[in-house]
């Protein structure tokens, strides 16, 4: 089992998990911090931005002055902004079978992957994730396409030239792979490959693994994923929250007993408490507006904005600000506000219950009704007629490089009465503000990140107890700026395995078992012999039949009669033709020794996980016809699932020999993992003999019938 790490951004992950012959991409985040190196795209012609001086080398060489501009000591690329994609060279992305999406922020690179890598698989995501993700993509495309910019700079990306540039351009990574934004057509095509799923829905992948989305509590429709086979379980935890904001609460219980837990998407501001930050936000907003200043809130069109509006709904009246207009400007503002109200089943309990009342789940509906909140697709059109100051404007993009926010920064930046309040934690606010310097406007940094902090993570890990934790390397050491804060890192035993961009991790696995079913007629033929109170054994000779990663023990072929050479061999439909079995070794089982071994192994295994397995180690005299290597047989005594119970009842009804002990038809055997021969769709016929033939351990209690 391997993990290919395609993104180094801890909250915008993109990893590929190879697990039991399937290739699963976990999230598809797009690192947009690369856009901070570019000049803003002004919606309205900005003389200031267009007259910035070109940048020249120290020796006065100005050959880059068309591509690079200088503003207040910083150098920016004057071009259409570009994004840093996940690694595409580390693994052949056309072999990815499925992509699992956790939340709408973690799917922004999807069109790059699905449209340009030969990807032919399926994408799984919840409905709100898809719908709001579509809005985010639509907004992004709209922001960039509506300011056509002819120039596309590429000279500076030359490695020899980049070396000469000032920081941070000099240190930008993988600039050659940076790409322009996708088109709406690519977005639509990418989204058409998505299959919608609901929380706790079980999705079978080629019979080998099952994937299940769980509520993660972070955003509308946000999920964590369980990827499991019969005996292995991998949990993928992405952006999750334990706070009681609008989404459904996080499902923690289902993450229990994982062999591996991949942990990403923790809070980016571990020292800031979201409640305190909301308080800061409100206080600073009120102080500005009371003085006649305007407040600008650069934000995404969905997510924290719902909570901020709800908070303001309660606050503005008490602060005597009811007459101050709130504006929400985004090409998708209307859809975002409406979507939030219709995804009732994805909301927290408190909001869900409002569906049965004549009031909408979110109070922003009332703000709209009472004309306190107004939304517009852009600053052009109706907005310019309605615009009143002082006011509060929510608009994108939080990077301050494109979108309507650029206009407001230019408009309000010169007055110290106005305030820009940063609430989104994805971008460094100082870097975001760099091309607007010098700036008279007040800047307040109140990042609101509701994702898990390290205290919550440590509680979560204690609760769900995974055998191994895998996380981005940033989480295994304190933040660089606070190197003494040993509390700001993941603290677990064994220590978490860390990954970085473009790294391949071999994940440790202790359990290597497969589930094998026994055909009823074969089970019927077994005659267990009680060798010790409570323990019975039966020998079994069978053929192992494997198809679509399912294994079945069938009755062995009747040995073909040695015939004279000219007679034709009878063709058997049921039982595959096979060569004559090697003669059985004769002798008796050393019962006492055998049982002791069984008990020892069962005690050992009983400590690990809830499945009690009895393993017959070194029980291998037979041969795999093709593989020839069996390390162990085991017999499971785990409780039967409902499905298995039903099957068992059905099979038990079949006529059996009266008065004779029958093996429990549903008793399952486990074999070592068959990885080498489990190619998807391959057909394998293996005949197995174990010990002198084969041994089977049955629980005496199951013979009470």
């Amino acid at each position, binding site marked *: 089992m391997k993990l290919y790490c395609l993104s180094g951004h801890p909250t915008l992950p993109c990893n590929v998990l190879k697990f039991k012959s399937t290739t699963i991409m976990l999230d598809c985040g797009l690192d947009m911090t690369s856009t901070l190196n570019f000049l803003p795209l002004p919606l309205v012609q900005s003389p200031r931005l267009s007259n910035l001086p070109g940048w020249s080398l120290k020796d006065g060489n100005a050959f880059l002055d068309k591509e690079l501009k200088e503003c207040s000591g910083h150098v920016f690329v004057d071009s259409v902004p570009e994004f840093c994609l996940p690694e595409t060279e580390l693994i052949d992305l056309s072999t990815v079978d499925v992509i699992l999406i956790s939340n709408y922020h973690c799917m922004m690179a999807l069109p790059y992957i699905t449209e340009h890598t030969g990807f032919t698989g399926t994408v799984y995501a919840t409905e709100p994730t898809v719908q709001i993700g579509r809005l985010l993509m639509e907004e992004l495309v709209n922001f960039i396409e509506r300011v056509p910019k002819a120039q596309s700079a590429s000279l500076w990306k030359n490695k020899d030239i980049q070396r000469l540039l000032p920081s941070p351009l000099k240190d930008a990574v993988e600039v050659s792979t940076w790409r322009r934004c996708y088109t709406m057509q690519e977005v639509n095509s990418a989204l058409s490959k998505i299959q919608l799923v609901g929380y706790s829905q079980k999705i079978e992948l080629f019979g080998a693994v099952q994937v299940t989305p769980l509520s993660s509590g972070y955003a509308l429709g946000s999920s964590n994923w369980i990827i499991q086979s019969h005996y292995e379980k991998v949990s993928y935890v992405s952006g999750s929250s334990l706070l009681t904001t609008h989404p459904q609460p996080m499902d923690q219980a289902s993450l229990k007993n994982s062999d591996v837990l991949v942990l990403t998407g923790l809070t980016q501001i571990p020292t*800031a*408490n979201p409640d*305190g930050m*909301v*308080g800061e936000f409100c206080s*600073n907003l009120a102080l500005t507006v*009371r003085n006649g200043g305007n407040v600008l809130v650069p934000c995404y069109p969905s997510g924290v904005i719902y909570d901020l509006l709800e908070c303001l709904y309660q606050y503005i009246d008490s602060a005597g600000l009811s007459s101050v207009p709130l504006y929400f400007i985004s090409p998708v503002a209307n859809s975002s506000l409406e979507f939030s109200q219709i995804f009732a089943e994805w909301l927290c309990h408190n909001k869900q219950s409002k569906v049965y009342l004549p009031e909408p789940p979110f109070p922003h509906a009332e703000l709209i009704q009472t004309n306190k909140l107004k939304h517009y697709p852009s600053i052009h059109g109706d907005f310019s007629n309605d615009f009143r100051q002082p006011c509060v404007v929510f608009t994108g993009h939080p990077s301050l490089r494109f979108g309507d926010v650029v206009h407001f920064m230019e408009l309000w930046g010169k007055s110290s009465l106005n305030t820009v309040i940063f609430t989104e934690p994805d971008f460094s606010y100082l870097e975001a503000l760099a091309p607007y310097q010098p700036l008279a406007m007040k800047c307040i940094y*109140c990042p609101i990140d509701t994702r898990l902090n390290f205290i919550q993570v440590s509680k979560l890990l204690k609760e769900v107890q995974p055998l191994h934790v895998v996380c981005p390397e940033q989480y295994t050491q304190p933040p660089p700026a606070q190197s003494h804060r*040993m509390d700001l890192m993941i603290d677990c035993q064994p220590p978490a395995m860390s990954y970085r961009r473009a790294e391949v991790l071999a994940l440790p696995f202790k359990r290597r078992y497969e589930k094998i079913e026994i055909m009823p007629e074969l089970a019927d033929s077994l005659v267990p012999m009680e060798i010790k109170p409570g323990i019975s054994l039966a020998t079994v000779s069978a053929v192992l039949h494997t198809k679509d990663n399912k294994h079945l023990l069938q009755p062995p072929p009747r040995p073909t009669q040695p015939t004279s050479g000219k007679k034709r061999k009878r063709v058997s439909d049921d039982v595959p033709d096979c060569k004559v079995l090697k003669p059985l070794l004769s002798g008796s089982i050393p019962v006492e020794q055998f049982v002791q071994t069984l008990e020892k192994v069962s005690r050992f295994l009983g400590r690990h996980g809830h499945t009690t397995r009895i393993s017959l180690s070194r029980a291998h005299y037979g041969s795999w016809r093709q593989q020839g290597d069996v390390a162990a047989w085991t017999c499971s005594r785990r409780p039967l699932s409902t499905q298995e119970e039903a099957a068992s009842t059905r099979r038990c009804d079949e006529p059996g020999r009266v008065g004779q002990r029958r093996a429990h038809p549903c008793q399952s055997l486990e074999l070592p993992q068959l990885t080498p021969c489990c190619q998807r769709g391959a057909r394998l016929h293996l005949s197995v003999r174990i010990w002198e033939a084969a041994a089977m351990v049955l629980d005496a209690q199951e013979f009470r019938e």
Partner: protein
Amino acid sequence: MDLECSRLLPALCAVLVDPRQPVADDTCLEKLLDWFKTVTEGESSLLLLQEHPCLVELLSHVLKLQDLSPGVLSFSLRLAGIFAAQENCFQYLQGDSSLFVASAASQLLVHILALSMRGGAEEQPCLQGDDWPTCAQKIMGHVEESLCSTATPKVTQALNVLTTTFGRCQSPWTEALWVRLSARVACLIERDPIPAAHSLVDLLLCVARSPVFGSSNGNLWEMVAQALSCLGPTHVGPLALGILKLEHCPQALRTQAFQVLLQPLACVLKATVQAPGPPGLLLRAKGTRAVAITPGLLDGMADDAMTVDALLASKSSCAGLLCRTLAHLEELQPLPQRPSPWPQVPLLGAAVTVLRLCDGSATPVSSVGGHLCRTLAGCVRVQRAALDFLGMLSQGTSPQELVMQVLAVLLECLESPGSSPTVLKKAFQATFRWLLSSPKTPSCSGLGPHIPQFLRELFLVLQKRLCSPCWEVRDSALEFLTQLSRHWGGEADFSCALLASEVPELAWQLLQDPESYVRASAVTATGQLSSRGLHAPTSPQHAVARQSLLRELLRILSTDSEGFPRRAVMQVFTEWLRDGHADVARDTEQFVATVLQLASQDLDWEVRVQGLELALVFLGQTLGPPRTHCPYAVALPEAAPARPLTEALRALCHVRLFDFAFRALFDCDRPVAQKSCDLLLFLRDKIASYNSLGEANPNTNSVEVSPWRRWAGEQTQPQEDQEPEAVLAMLRSLDLEGLQSTLAESSDHVEKSPQSLLQDMLATGGFLQGDEADCY
């Protein structure tokens, strides 16, 4: 005992010994005991027992019963103890599963021991153990045996008995007792773990406090010293504190105790102090240069392994230990016998470090420090304790630079978005205390030289906090503002910084806060600012609304639906009237008339009481201040009244003060009536003094006394001004003293009588209702 009670007693005793009868509750029994105690103090117990054989029957009966409730058993034992204090000897019982019984038995044991010793040993004060009376021998044998037991509960009981003994009895024989037992107690300290450590600490402190031992008890001090080094951090703190509170105690022991007390803070400092460089603690605060703090007492203290273990064991153990330590030191600081020199500077350093650990900005230099950092980050409980402690340290003298650092830490705490409302409240309190103690310089500014800059930053923070969405924060910010302006309202630096901020404006706006507590605090704050002439600078936006704070406060008094803001308005008005606020002085009579009318109609009794207080102030201003009642006060010549009595009375009538006072006299809320009574008594007294000065007595004989009930009645219609003559007649006709004494009796004085108690208990048992047959 009165007759009625004597009559009820036998029935009650019957109820108590009858297991079928429910006994009301333990509180009743406690009250009954209290009553018996009073009775036995007044008359002979022997006589009481002779007159009430039912009591003896009760006691003897109780001993025979098997299934008696522990409550009644305990009651009986204690009752027996009360009688035994005069008469003699009962059986004892100890180790009962019920805490009541165990405690009662233990107390009884002490009584008996003391009695038997007094009986036999009074003439031979230094009696040796062998010569003790049999009873005392027996008890001591039992205690000794228990002390050697391996069962902790038995040890605890024995220690408790001894603690009670040394606490109650201070006769010379207790010294002999200690000599006999001290070896056994010393053995306890040598055990690991020390059993019943809490009780052991109590015993040691009790013995140490006992005057019998004087100051020369080397054996005791050795034992205490040993306990200080052996006890775990949980128990050693109270012991150390207790020792430091002792008036006489060897200096070496005091030093040891103080070191023990400081140990946790020393650990914290050590784990966070930069190792290289000059010895001491470097404290850094934003914008100030680092100052070396000499650890003094903390220097050279070895790390105590037990303390470090407790700090590292768990979050709760670490927080608990630090909170207790800080509380102990806080308790010690103001005491005259506190250790000297008091390590003010290192303690300040420790408090600041703890705060820095809580907000995550401390720099650990060891693995212990790293662990502390992880444990304490965001720990609100420790943060609050450290802020309390820091506030208390403001009383000591600290170097100016250190003061600035403390203020910087406080400012950061107030500024931090992560500070919880309770932490903010504590931070406001601590900041206020530090400002209060800031060194006064003889320069033109009354405040310290750095204070103006600090105030400017403080008001920026306050401004933000006044806009907080959390009402608790707005409330504590307003309270803080009130305190500040009350103390420094007159200082130019202060008012300059305040008026340069938006704080007064925001305080004004909070008069309309949706939360009533906040409105109340806003009323107090704006009232205070207004008294000091610190009006919000007018901005055109709110110019109309701001025309007069007086008008705004009157609006709140007449329309606010909650009591708190209205009470606050009344307090502000009273203060304004007392201080001669400009808005009030413009037309005082009109002001008083309006306020009294609103207050008299208020549904909240506290508002009405406050209204009477305001009336009293007005009375004082109209008729002269109240006379001092202290008989030894220098008798000042009576100041000439401001104006003639008739005129003064007419003014009082004009503001309808009498309407209000007479009606309040019969208010359904007792405090209102009491206040009104006091007010009228004061008035009568004043008039009498006028008369004594020889002013013409208004002719009242001819006045027909209208029924004074008219005032007390519900009439609310405006009526013509009362004539002063009628008022005087009214005053004379009232038995104010009688009324005052009636009102002084608590409303439950009937319910509190022993007769009522006995009746209640019997009623619970169903006896007074009589016929049991009725139940069927």
